[in-house]
């Protein structure tokens, strides 16, 4: 049973079918001047328009990237280094590594970087943002929802707090995880930049986007042929963009059903899990978390051992944080929430996705129970 949809979810029905023509006949380089190129270019721009519409953005505000990580890099490094400046960055300690490492990168280049803490639920305090933002700050980045715990940040309030401290800051959010189940538009979140990754919501890997509000200045991270209005060079991944657009459309149209079905499945999962493990601890606030995430601590059970056992039993879950070699590491998100390393090593993430059926929740809980109960 696949319970790691937050890592990657399968492609939604119809996505590959939409992409396939551009792997075959529509193969041409969209930057060319012949009819084959125009065919590819048209598909690319249609995809851009479709996605822009879904996000409440103008098509020219959509920059296609090679995924969520690249979008985060472009947002942070691009804004901090725009115009040859050394602009300041404010972000939170529980961000995805793509944001934190980009901040460290520009810090090494001399940009002032401030990382604000989070509370025990992983929430960022708007007051902490307004305190951290100063006249040198050019970009503030807080994720819409955390990829590990699923906690939903008060992005609009954080954006207001940031602008109150410095009206010229650009507010960026990594909405990679949130877009799956939350209504995400750029005006609703009141952000200037937003990152998405297609493979999290039923599209292909290797493609994502950065929404960049008109007027936000960015230094490109990838230099070359000047595609994407000079903001991101490199031959367009036409097939990927088409797949991402199809998946985004399906995600938005299916969202109501998704929330109901996955919500019911998770309810069943967590209820049964609590019966089996009465000391189970939830690591996200019940009133502000993504419907598809269950992030819990099993007191006394090491997650590394649990993951192997679950894998042997056919259950794919996650410790949400792994190093390059594949070892489970202590999550910086949980550390930022004040959790000890020992406790963090007892946490597991189960995440549901669009293929999840209501009954899967209770079935999954039963599997987890039989697989882990004797470890306590």
């Amino acid at each position: 049973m696949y319970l790691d949809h937050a890592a990657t979810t399968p492609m939604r029905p119809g996505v590959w079918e939409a992409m396939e023509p551009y792997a075959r006949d529509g193969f041409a380089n969209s930057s060319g001047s012949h009819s084959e190129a125009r065919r590819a270019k048209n598909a690319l721009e249609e995809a851009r328009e479709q996605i822009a519409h879904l996000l409440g953005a103008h098509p020219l505000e959509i920059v296609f990237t090679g995924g969520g990580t690249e979008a985060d890099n472009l947002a942070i490094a691009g804004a901090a280094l725009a115009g040859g400046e050394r602009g300041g960055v404010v972000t939170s300690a529980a961000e995805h590594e793509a944001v934190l490492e980009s901040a460290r990168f520009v810090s090494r280049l001399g940009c002032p970087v401030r990382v604000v803490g989070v509370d025990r639920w992983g929430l960022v305090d708007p007051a902490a943002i307004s305190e951290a933002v100063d006249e040198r700050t050019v970009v503030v980045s807080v994720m819409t929802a955390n990829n590990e715990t699923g906690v939903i940040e008060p992005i609009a309030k954080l954006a207001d707090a940031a602008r109150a401290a410095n009206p010229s800051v650009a507010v960026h959010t990594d909405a990679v995880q949130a877009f799956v189940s939350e209504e995400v538009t750029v005006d609703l979140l009141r952000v200037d930049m937003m990152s998405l990754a297609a493979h999290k919501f039923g599209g292909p890997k290797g493609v994502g986007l950065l929404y960049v509000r008109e007027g936000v200045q960015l230094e490109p991270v990838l230099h070359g042929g000047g595609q994407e209005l000079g903001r991101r060079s490199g031959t367009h991944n036409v097939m990927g963009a088409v797949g991402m657009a199809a998946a985004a459309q399906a995600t938005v149209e299916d969202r109501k059903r998704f929330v109901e079905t996955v919500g019911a499945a998770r309810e069943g999962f967590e209820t049964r899990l609590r019966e089996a493990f009465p000391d189970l601890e939830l690591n996200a606030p019940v009133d502000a978390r993504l419907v598809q995430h269950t992030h819990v601590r099993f007191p006394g059970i090491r997650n590394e051992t649990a993951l192997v056992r679950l894998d042997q039993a056919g259950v794919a879950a996650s410790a949400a944080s792994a190093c390059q070699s594949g070892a489970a590491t202590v999550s910086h998100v949980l550390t930022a929430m004040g959790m000890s390393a020992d406790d963090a090593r007892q946490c597991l993430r189960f995440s549901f996705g669009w293929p999840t059926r209501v009954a899967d929740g209770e079935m999954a809980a039963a599997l987890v129970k039989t697989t882990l109960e004797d470890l306590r």
Partner: protein
Amino acid sequence: MKTLVAMSGGVDSSVAAALMVEAGHDVIGATLKLWQGPDGEAPTAGCCTVSDAEDARRVAAQLEIPYYVFDYTDDFRTGVVDPFIDSYLLGRTPNPCVECNRTVKFSRLLDQAADLGCDLLVTGHYAQVRREATGWKLLRGIDPHKDQSYVLYMLGQTELARVRFPIGDMTKAETRSIAEQLGLRTATKKESQDICFVGVGDYRSFLDSQTDEARRSGTIVDRDGVHLGSHDGVAGFTVGQRKGLGVSLGEARYVTSIDPTSATVVLGKREDLLASGARLSRVSWVAGAPPPPGRVEVKIRYNCSSVPALLDPDGPTCTVLFEEPQASVAPGQAGVIYRGEELLGGGTILSAVP
């Protein structure tokens, strides 16, 4: 039987895993992440590199067994690296492989194997486990050049009942030839020789990177206390060392003893190194109880042969008296006791018997 194979990414453990699969066991492969850089990155040289884990992963895929990486960095730090540093600062010569086997592989990993429902833990060591009427025996590996039983002396009956070394009855050449026959990508991989966590450079620069105390300067004297020179840290010296002493006396001199309290290094002639025996501490016996006093062979360094000696076991410590005086009895190294091919037990060398 359900079996956990510790796979380092080298040819020995690759073949060990392959042999267990061939024998029909239900095998899980695992690599231990033991050491990492200051930012949590995997080392790029020495052992535990990403490329080693990748080799192990690919071999596991070829053998069609599940494969995982376990994070043992905390246990390795407290059980192996910290004592390694402390030992050098005390003027001793530690053997980190022994401590790793004692505190990580054959304790924590053995526990985890049980948690994973595995009946056996398998490694690619060159040593043999045999069940006899009187209990489990630990024997030298068949290949005299590769025998690794020395670093396994701490295994007792409980461990041996659950541990297997499938390549212990093979030579290294046979191991490589099996790897080649099976087309394992690790078949021609170079042997790792260095201390895994030290990486590029020697252990002295590693110590420098870990502690300022390694740089506490002191004096070098001869056996009569005559000042010969100065040094910048006792951790740079090991008993028996001849090269790199930083003093020139016209004839060969050796480190004969180290006093960490006064940071004094004592030099002497080759014959001053000779000891008639060694006292061992933290002694453990494979059988669970000491053998009767008598003739044994003892091995006092990984890279030397065992020599005839008389054993006088006495609780948690014991004394071995060599038939011929031995040079370079270095406190901190393992003293391992054999009778023929059988390993009886061993301990940490506490001091030389003059």
